[in-house]
């Protein structure tokens, strides 16, 4: 069995533009405030705990630049057996990072049976890397966990946060990808001797894919497909404007429904179909 955790090297306190929601690093990439998030640290601790119960080695994989290495060495000091850094830039899109990570975690290389990630990174990450990973590795996924307990034979019992304060208890088995919230566990403190020795320990480096393979970032915001709106009719400009803006037209007020998750999903799909965002077959 091989246990692995994935961590992202990020600005832990980026500046978020209040109007546009864009995220910017104050000191530029690699400033003093960069590190790994609370959730990622919790992921490493969970991996260490699973490794201890299952007597399995624990590896940490990080896709990031060389500046991340001091922080990665701290993880070696805390008890991780090996650390692999995929040599990439700091600001990879999630899907590209997941491809890099999956290549290292896959059977050909580390052969990780369990991968633990933080739920989403501190720089307003979307939390999608674990899902991408599960896809690439063909593994089960249990995401956004607030508790993880190992049970025998490579299985875990986990608790997941749902909307409205509900909790879901689930059991997963290897191969699996877990993502955990920061509150799940606090990363153990590295002993002093291991900390002092960590400066000399090796972080294995794998080349990242050359930059031109990485998809260019989207330059415009995504919008739903346009619908054709007929030109307004009317003799007076005012009539046309009123018609165009729909100011005086009666409209459906927003609806709030409370349903079980499956029924809620169905309801949402129906509504999207009604509005014309989905085809009749749900594509």
């Amino acid at each position, binding site marked *: 069995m091989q246990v692995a955790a994935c961590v992202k090297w990020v600005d*832990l*306190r980026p500046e978020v533009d209040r109007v546009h929601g864009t995220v910017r690093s*104050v*000191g530029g990439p690699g400033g*003093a*405030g960069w590190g790994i998030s609370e959730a990622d640290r919790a992921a490493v601790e969970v991996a260490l705990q699973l490794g201890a119960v299952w007597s399995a080695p624990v590896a940490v994989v990080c896709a990031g630049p060389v500046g991340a290495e001091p922080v990665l060495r701290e993880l070696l000091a805390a008890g991780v057996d090996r650390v692999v850094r995929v040599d990439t830039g700091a600001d990879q899109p999630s899907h590209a990072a997941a491809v890099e990570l999956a290549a290292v975690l896959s059977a050909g290389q580390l052969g990780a049976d369990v991968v633990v990630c933080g739920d989403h990174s501190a720089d307003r990450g979307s939390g999608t890397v674990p899902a991408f990973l599960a896809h690439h590795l063909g593994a089960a996924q249990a995401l956004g966990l607030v508790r993880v307990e190992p049970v025998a034979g490579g299985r875990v019992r986990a608790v997941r946060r749902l909307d409205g304060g509900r909790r879901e208890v689930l059991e997963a088995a290897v191969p699996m990808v877990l993502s955990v919230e920061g509150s799940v566990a*606090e990363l153990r*403190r590295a002993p002093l001797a291991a900390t002092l020795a960590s400066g000399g320990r090796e972080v294995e480096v794998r080349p990242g894919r050359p930059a031109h393979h990485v998809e260019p970032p989207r330059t415009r915001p995504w919008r739903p497909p346009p619908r054709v709106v007929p030109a307004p009719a009317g003799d007076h400009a005012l009539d046309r404007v009123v018609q165009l803006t729909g100011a005086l037209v009666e409209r459906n007020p927003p609806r709030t429904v409370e349903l079980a998750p499956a029924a809620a999903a169905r309801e949402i799909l129906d509504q999207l179909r009604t509005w014309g965002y989905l085809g009749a077959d749900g594509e």
Partner: protein
Amino acid sequence: MSAGTYPEISFEARMGSVEFRIDEDRAHITVDDTKCRDCSTRGCITACPANLFVPTADGGILFNYEQCFECGTCYLVCNREGAITWTYPEGGHGVVFHRT
């Protein structure tokens, strides 16, 4: 701009501009407020720049360590031996400055 119209931020927003990596397990400063009841100066209340000392109706002090600058003002001004137990937080925890 004339006096009084400067848009001042709330104290919460002020403290919200500071990063604190809170140690959930241990309070690095504790206040034994049985000692505060006969304290005549109560210097901590006005002096603590993070405004963490809150007087209670029964003459005690309510203290929360989480948003602390670790500056030392409180133990320096406190005039009751043993009222404040002051240590640094565990390494890596507590306040983290960025543009200071």
